[in-house]
């Protein structure tokens, strides 16, 4: 055996464990999902049969699917930018030399370590009309009329978005904080000597240097916008009348409540495509504009 071939075998053997895991838990399920979306749902003794694009035609005619898709787009647009901006501002704040910095950092990070189901149960009571924390402020202090936050079509989704932002911002803050501390102080000194203002320093030095972090955070935020549905189960169960249902929550409904695994697979294919497109955009377009130090 030549030295070269031995090196190749060695390399492949080293890669094997990771490759096996990746294939078994990522690639195989994805391919199987696409495959199953072309079959009917097996039930009892009736096996699955090839139905071609039938499931996809059902999907196009399914009003609930379109509604959860639109909901999900609003959910993404509402949560991603806000939680990233908040995370950045919080990171800038706790990076400064202020009293009680440790306490502040902990406070911002707490939502991240709490389990979502527990958090959702707490927020459920925050939003309770009449005596919930929110109403105690808006009705008791501001004198506004009482409102059923989770029980109205107009506010249910927004209420869930607030919980998501609260949960996500602290998590993203950690990445920004780490990145901020990695910026060499010489840059700040150089900027000061050149006579740059704080704003200029922030806009021209800090933000460009944080672009790789922003890209990373953005990828995570997009994935989470489609992935985080725990609080829906506790707080609204998608209601009222699907006003707060998201794509993944609907997939769960179809898969494990209606037991229509073929249609659930079809919906999952849509989710796969959406996430794939988002990833492509981020890596092909945004990455080119990102400056790595």
């Amino acid at each position: 055996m030549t030295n070269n071939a031995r090196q190749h075998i060695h390399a492949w053997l080293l890669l094997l464990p990771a490759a096996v895991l990746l294939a078994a838990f990522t690639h195989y399920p994805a391919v199987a999902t696409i495959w199953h979306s072309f079959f009917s749902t097996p039930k009892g003794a009736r096996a699955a049969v090839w139905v071609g694009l039938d499931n996809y035609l059902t999907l196009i005619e399914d009003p609930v699917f379109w509604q959860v898709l639109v909901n999900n787009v609003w959910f993404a647009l509402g949560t991603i930018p806000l939680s990233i901006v908040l995370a950045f501002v919080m990171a800038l704040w706790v990076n400064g030399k202020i009293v009680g910095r440790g306490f502040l950092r902990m406070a911002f990070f707490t939502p991240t370590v709490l389990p979502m189901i527990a958090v959702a149960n707490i927020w459920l009571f925050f939003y309770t009309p009449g005596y919930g924390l929110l109403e105690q402020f808006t009705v008791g202090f501001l004198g506004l009329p009482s409102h059923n936050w989770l029980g109205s079509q107009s506010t249910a989704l927004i209420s869930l978005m607030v919980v998501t932002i609260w949960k996500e911002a602290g998590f993203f803050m950690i990445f920004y904080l780490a990145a901020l501390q990695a910026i060499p102080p010489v840059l700040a000194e150089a900027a000061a000597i050149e006579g740059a203002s704080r704003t200029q320093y922030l806009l021209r030095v800090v933000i460009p240097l944080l672009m790789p972090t922003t890209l990373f955070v953005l990828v995570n935020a997009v994935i989470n916008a489609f992935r985080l549905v725990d609080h829906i189960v506790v707080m609204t169960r998608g209601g009222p009348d699907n006003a707060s249902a998201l794509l993944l929550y609907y997939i769960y409904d179809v898969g494990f409540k209606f037991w229509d695994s073929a249609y659930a697979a079809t919906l999952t294919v849509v989710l796969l495509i959406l996430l794939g497109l988002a990833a492509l955009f981020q890596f092909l377009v945004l990455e080119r504009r990102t400056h790595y130090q």
Partner: protein
Amino acid sequence: MLTRQLTQWMRHVFTATLISLCAALPNVVQAQATEVSFFYPVAVGGPITKLIDAFAADFEKENPTIKIKPIYSGTYQESIVKALTAMKSGEPPVLSVLLSTDMFTLIDEEAIVDWTSLAKTPEEQQWLKSFYPAFMENSQTGGKTWGIPFQRSTIVMYWNKELFKEAGLDPNKAPANWTEMLNYAKKLTRRDAAGNVTQWGVQIPSSGFPYWLFQGLTTPNNVVLMNKEGNKTYFDHPNVIEALQYWVDLSQKHKVMAPGVIEWGTTPRDFFERKVAIMWTTTGNLTNVKNNAKFDFGVAMLPASKRAGSPTGGGNFYLFKKSTPAQQQAALKFVKWITSPERAAQWGIDTGYVAVRPDAFDTLTMRKYAAGFPPAAVARDQLQYSVAELSTHENQRVTKALNDGLQAALTGTKKPDQAMKDAQREAERILRPYRK
């Protein structure tokens, strides 16, 4: 040298034999004891897991050849997911408590066997007939019994006696019909100087599973929502629409109930906080209310319209097909044992569920309990008017069509008749293949 080798060799042989003996031993024991795995969900407060474990231990003491393995499987929804996915991967539980409304789903998946063909002796046949007929409506189809009632409940009305007194109403008399409930609720709704409501008259929760609460309105309005075969619904029946109109009017027209969708989970808390004077919820909350209400409260049957009535709810025992005949017989024995009058009574007292058979209420334990705490008997008295909970083929999908329609009407995005016609059309589309 040779002797040492020989001793070592002998020692090896001895160890090997010992190991194989030890390994074989549990098999011998297992061959004698039949193991019955048993999934059960927990849907109400209280030490349910302890109660079930104690039942299993007591049963094993009386039947040493049977081993009951109770497995806590989460909520009802998690339990059916676990049971059905376990079945599809080849290893379902032998026995499981699942929602009575999942009967058609489980039959369609060919997951379960019926109890009728298993109960061979006359005594066992008699046992199948010992339950309240209202509970059996959700447990039988096509002349066979598929579920044995166990943790069953029904909707009742709770009222705050202090608030009744403050409003000048008789604190010991609950509204008996729809007109009375509306009139009482008007008197019980309070507003502050700015016109904001500080106390609502009545509350019928509508999150999650509004269809069940809605059956507390349709049943008194003398209409059922589906046929016995579970392949046809009547969501657009005039009486159904009328019932929905009454529900919607409570908040939108008369303004005696909070607007929008009302959360099921926070409803008892609203009641404890005196934010609402009358609430509708499950009998399963009885123990919860008893422990947490800091005021005198009453429990009554749901108000009547054209008749009295309420739906039943809760879980049944199902027997999975992929089990050995020995396991099925053992499971039958266990279920018969745990639903005996004495244990059904104890289970009802400990949990707030309704004891599933009439003779359970004749036991000494239950008679004593009901004498000291009369609300415990309300659910039983209501059972004679009760009907089956909504259950069809493709149950959760059909139910969702109705839920969406109800929530659309309650939030005001659709008129009641439009909402119910849409729900019926969707249900028709789903159920048509099941009417060959």
